[in-house]
């Protein structure tokens, strides 16, 4: 976290604060956040609802501006990085445009940035192949299952070969079985593209399965409680994360480690009745 920003640094967040003005007063969403994501690295943000995961990711994407501190992406300001299309983004809801076919949805960013139609369709075909939806190019989103929609969204996020992928609970709405499948796909795709990934999730196994490092956050105000490195990724290449991993001992250990980081401070299961984590 103390590395100087460099070509090998994807995201550099330093001393970032974020305060929202609301009708009922100020909400301190983030409090002096420091975080560096290396190029090619897979970092997950985890924490209870309202701890500021999405807010942090939105600052990186320049969808919001920090109240204090600075965010740089590949050495540029967040704004410049957005204008330069340095990142691809995906949200919990796939956010496909319902009136566009699968192919047209994936083509959207290319279209907006004036990529010639020939190049565009080659690239789209390539992307759909990558996410395994080549046969569905002419379907409309409502003709796809939730998992397929999410894959289209991922293809769209990858359209311009970004070196950084921002994902806010992209699998949150999927059922557990589809979710596991998508995780494997994501591991494969991120290995193929070599992009750094900032991944927001609520699910510990998901974070553990996917990440090189898991950032555990705590709410009110949003702070980083702990950054748990995943030994899983240390010795094996990410692409080696297969389904079998999920049933391995090391996996359960990492899950337990993240659980404990999450619950440290508020002893597990003994909170007073009726107190919500959000």
């Amino acid at each position, binding site marked *: 976290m103390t590395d100087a920003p460099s070509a090998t640094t994807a995201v550099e967040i330093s001393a970032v604060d974020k305060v929202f003005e609301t009708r009922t007063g100020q909400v301190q969403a983030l409090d002096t956040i420091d975080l560096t994501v290396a190029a090619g690295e897979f970092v997950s943000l985890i924490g209870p609802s309202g701890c500021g995961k999405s807010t942090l990711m939105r600052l990186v994407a320049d969808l919001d501006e920090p109240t204090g501190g600075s965010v740089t992406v590949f050495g540029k300001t967040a704004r410049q990085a957005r204008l330069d299309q340095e990142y691809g983004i995906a949200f919990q*809801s796939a*956010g*496909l*445009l319902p009136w566009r076919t699968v192919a047209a949805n994936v083509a959207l960013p290319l279209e907006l940035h004036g990529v010639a139609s020939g190049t565009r369709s080659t690239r789209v075909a390539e992307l759909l192949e990558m996410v395994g939806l080549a046969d569905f190019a002419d379907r*409309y989103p409502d003709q796809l299952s939730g998992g397929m929609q999410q894959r289209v969204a991922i293809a769209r996020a990858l359209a311009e070969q970004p070196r950084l992928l921002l994902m806010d609970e992209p699998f949150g709405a999927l059922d557990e079985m589809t979710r596991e499948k998508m995780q494997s796909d994501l591991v494969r795709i991120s290995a193929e593209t070599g992009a750094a990934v900032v991944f927001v999730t609520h699910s510990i196994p998901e974070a553990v399965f996917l990440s090189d490092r898991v950032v555990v956050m705590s709410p009110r105000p949003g702070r980083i409680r702990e950054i748990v490195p995943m030994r899983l990724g240390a010795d094996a290449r990410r692409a080696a994360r297969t389904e079998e991993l999920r049933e391995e001992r090391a996996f359960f250990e990492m899950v337990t480690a993240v659980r404990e980081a999450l619950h440290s401070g508020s002893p597990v299961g003994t909170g007073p009745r009726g107190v919500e984590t959000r």
Partner: protein
Amino acid sequence: MREDVVTGTANGTVADAAASAPARDLRAPHRAGRGRGRRELARWGWGLAGILAIVLIWEGYKLLGPADGVVIGDARVLPRTTDLAMPHVWDMLTRLAEPVTRSPSAQPLWAVVALGALTTLGIAAVGWLVGVIVGIGLALVMQRWRIAEWGLFPWIVLSQTVPLIAFAPIVKSWGSRVEIGAFEWQDWMSVALIASYLAFFPIAIGALKGLQSPDRIHEELMQTYAAGYWQTLTKLRFPASVPYLLPALRLGAANAVIGAVVAEVSTGLQGGIGRILIQFAGQASGDPAKAWGPIFGAIVLGLVAAGSVALLGVILKNYRRTEEAA
């Protein structure tokens, strides 16, 4: 139909639609076609039955009801059944086929009505177009600047409480001063202008709702693509507004026709159905069935206008994929 727009509450979501997706994939095309055809047929059948029911009620009441209607206290709650007040349905229909007057050059009533209706349709179409331009223009301004929305919206609502009929002569009079180069204001333009005044309201409201309808996530996606205002407008806001805009346009069309007819009456424009309406209403004492010709004409005219816009919906069906099946 007016309300479609103004309520225009969220239609089904992508997620809802996705839930039924597998079934869609399995659909055997010809079967589905036949099923839809049958349903469509049933719809028309019941619709016809509805009209028939009205006819039966009309004639039944005319047969059984007292000539002077049913009066409770001071109010006549059920109508008179005299031929003057309620002509027989068949009289109204056969009257349509007879010539307007005894004059040897007279055309059949239906032809006169149809010609008038067509004229009015043309004027209403121009009014509708103006309404579309103004309505969408206002919606764009209000969508772009919040302050414009706050400043204008109440007045747009207020505009619909203005009894337009009081202004018809003024519109005509002001219009008659307009002369720019070779362009000279025609009286029918005043009528079209008044029609557009009624048409623009639902369109402005519907378009605003539609332009504001994209999900936050879609707006942000465009932001992450560093897409500018126009790109966002053409790629996102306009397509997303289609489900809101279509009912608004339909309502606008119906309003344009109503406005055109009233304005024709009010400004005395010749050639349209409004003029025929008052003309024949004036002859209703001696020829009660005749007055119904233009009334039916006005209804058909309104339905045709609204229906043509519905055709637009067929063309734009891909933009309505999230609409729930009505």
